[in-house]
């Protein structure tokens, strides 16, 4: 009860106190509030700045690493390209050297071969000489032929003249025109006259008749268009006696060459000669003088020479002969090696065992 009374006694002042307390708080509330805001804002600012600084640091580290990485990559690329360029320059130089030699060789051999050209020109001058000589010979031959033809024509003309003027021949009583007594020997015309056969009257007339043909005038400017033929022999001539065989046949038969048989043609010691020949050939062509041994005893006296590469000073290396790959027995899971997956082939199992070994090289 006492407390109640105490409390009741405080009651009326409570309201004013309450009011004063609220008012006092209210008065400082603004200032306190502002101060609090200030403090808080500054602190937040600190925090944020610290965070930003931290972020900055981290960023710098990251960027530093990244730039370093990029730079190194770039550098590596640069080194590679520089190396590549160096290599290419070197190759180019070497290629230039090779091409220089090759071009020189090729041009000197195929395009402008000085020695071949020289030989060719020499050959041409030699050929020219030959051609010139041959042509000269040909021209000389032609000249000679022409001369011969001219001479023959002259002869024929003179003979024709002699035949026409056969009456100028000298007689016993009276020397002819060409056989003057003051000459030492008669003129050659005299000789011709003596040999000549006088013309018969008919032939002279035929010759005159031919000269009058009109048809030959207009077109042909040369004397005759047909080939000249020798005069045919007169028809009423005496035939030679008896049916004679053709001269060529007779001569062939008379001078037929001998055709001996093979038996006659071979010499008496042909067999010995042939044997000699064979022996000589053998002796000539034989390279190997060893006796011919049968196959099985072929290699019996030879020892096997191992390769230098596989034999070391401690004896022969087993690698490559006994085994071909490394095997680590301690690493094996089970104590067995790999199993062959494929079955063996029967045919190959029988290899070398079906027939006798007589013909095989051991």
């Amino acid at each position, binding site marked *: 009860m006492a407390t109640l009374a105490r409390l009741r006694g405080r009651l009326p002042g409570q309201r004013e106190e309450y009011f004063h307390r609220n008012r006092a708080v209210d008065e400082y509330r603004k200032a306190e509030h502002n101060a609090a805001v200030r403090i808080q804002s500054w602190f937040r600012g600190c925090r944020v700045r610290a965070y930003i600084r931290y972020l900055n640091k981290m960023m710098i580290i990251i960027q530093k690493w990244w730039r370093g990485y990029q730079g190194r990559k770039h550098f590596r690329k640069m080194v590679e390209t520089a190396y590549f360029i160096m290599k290419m320059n070197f190759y180019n130089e070497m290629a230039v050297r090779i091409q220089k030699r090759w071009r020189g060789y090729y041009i000197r051999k195929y395009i402008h071969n000085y020695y071949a050209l020289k030989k060719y020109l020499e050959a041409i001058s030699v050929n020219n000489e030959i*051609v010139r000589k041959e042509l000269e010979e040909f021209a000389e031959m032609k000249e000679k032929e022409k001369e011969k033809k001219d001479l023959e024509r002259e002869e024929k003309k003179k003979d024709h003249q002699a035949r026409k003027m056969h009456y100028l021949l000298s007689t016993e009583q009276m020397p002819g025109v060409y056989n003057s007594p003051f000459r030492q020997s008669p003129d050659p015309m005299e000789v011709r006259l003596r040999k000549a056969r006088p013309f018969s009257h008919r032939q002279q007339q035929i010759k005159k008749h031919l000269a009058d043909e009109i*048809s030959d005038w*207009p077109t042909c400017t040369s004397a005759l268009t047909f*080939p000249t033929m020798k005069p045919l022999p007169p028809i009423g001539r005496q035939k030679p006696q008896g049916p004679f065989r053709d001269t060529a046949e007779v001569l062939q038969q008379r001078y037929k060459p001998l055709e001996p048989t093979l038996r006659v043609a071979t010499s008496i010691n042909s067999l010995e000669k042939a044997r000699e020949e064979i022996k000589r050939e053998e002796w000539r062509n034989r390279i190997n003088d060893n006796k011919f041994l049968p196959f099985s005893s072929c290699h019996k006296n030879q020892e096997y020479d191992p390769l230098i590469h596989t034999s070391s000073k401690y004896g022969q290396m087993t690698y490559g002969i006994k085994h071909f790959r490394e095997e680590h027995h301690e690493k094996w899971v089970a104590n067995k090696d790999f199993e062959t997956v494929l079955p063996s082939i029967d045919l190959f199992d029988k290899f070398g065992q079906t027939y006798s070994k007589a013909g095989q090289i051991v």
Partner: protein
Amino acid sequence: FCLFSQDLPQNIHLLMYIGVMSLLRPLLLDVVPTIQQTAALALGRLANYNDDLAEAVVKGDILPQLVYSLAEQNRFYKKAAAFVLRAVGKHSPQLAQAIVDCGALDTLVICLEDFDPGVKEAAAWALGYIARHNAELSQAVVDAGAVPLLVLCIQEPEIALKRIAASALSDISKHSPELAQTVVDAGAIAHLAQMILNPDAKLKRQVLSALSQIAKHSVDLAEMGVEAEIFPVVLTCLKDSDEYVKKNAATLIREIAKHTPELSQLIVNAGGVAAVIDCIGNCKGNVRLPGIMMLGYVAAHSENLAMAVIISKGVPQLSICLSEEREDHIKAAAAWALGQIGRHTPEHARAVAVTNVLPLLLSLYMETESSEDLQVKTKKALKNILQKCTYLPALEPLLHDAPPNILKHVVGQFSKVLPHDSKARRLFVTTGGLKKVQEIKAEPGSLLQEYINTINNCYPEEIVR
């Protein structure tokens, strides 16, 4: 009086005076065949003599009558009628055209199939003369189907017929490549090639001329000619005694050589160059001309061939030609050939200059009487040779006489050689060349002045002054 008109021109004037043409025409229609023949013969002789008379023959409408009766009459009349046609056709293209227009070609071709070789000869001769004038007439002759028959005529044994047929083929094929190809397609080349071996000179002339007319048009035709194995037989023709055979053989070789280097090479390898050079040495005058041109063509193709010509001793021969000949066109050809030989390399130019031909060329160029063509060719030849010539002793004489445009090249060559060769420099001074060079007046800045400066720079100052 037909027999009268044989050969004497005075008689013909007389006959013209009495108006013979109108008299002859009715005689052609006479009943007696001999009179017809002699009338035709007389007409032919008249037309042969003079082209006015030939025109009168055409105008007098005699041709259709002749053509009509050609088909029917005997061989003497055919010969005479073909003679008339030939005589009319040979004067001018218009007359030949008139003959073609009245349909004479078909009857002439029918005559070519006749048995008598005289008739064939007359018909072939007429066709040859008609085809000679221009390409259309040749084409007309070919269209009438004459070519295979002419090729058959060539194979006949009579020499005169072969001659005429060869000359007709030559006249046909000379105008254009197509006509030449037609002749080749009829198989003419093989027969012509065989006939080169024939000893008759006139036949060889015609055959060689026919082959050269065929070969001149194109490379293929020339190659076909070569495949017929005419080399080295043609070279023997170069040694023939007849001038025209030599000329035609040289023409044939020239036509073949001018197409390609390979054909020239073939000719060189067969020794053709030596044969042609000998032939040039033996002949005089116009006959040399195709040989000279052939050397020029061969040398023009390549420097190896030019060297082959030089080795075959062609240059002395050409310089002899140049100095001996009177005619300008032959001299021009020789100058051109020398230019072709000397223009390739200094070796070639030296070989040409050694024969002392340069002063000769210069004098020909300077002469006022030389024709335009000769002057142009010598100038070109000089220029080409000088541009490659390093043989100074030959250039010296040119310094003294040459006109400025040639002098420029001469001095240019000196300026190229002197800076490198001390012996030549000494020689140049002692022979008075330096003095001459100083005397040359040139515009400053021109090429000539530069050359002179280069030469002056080779020598120390005192000598130059």
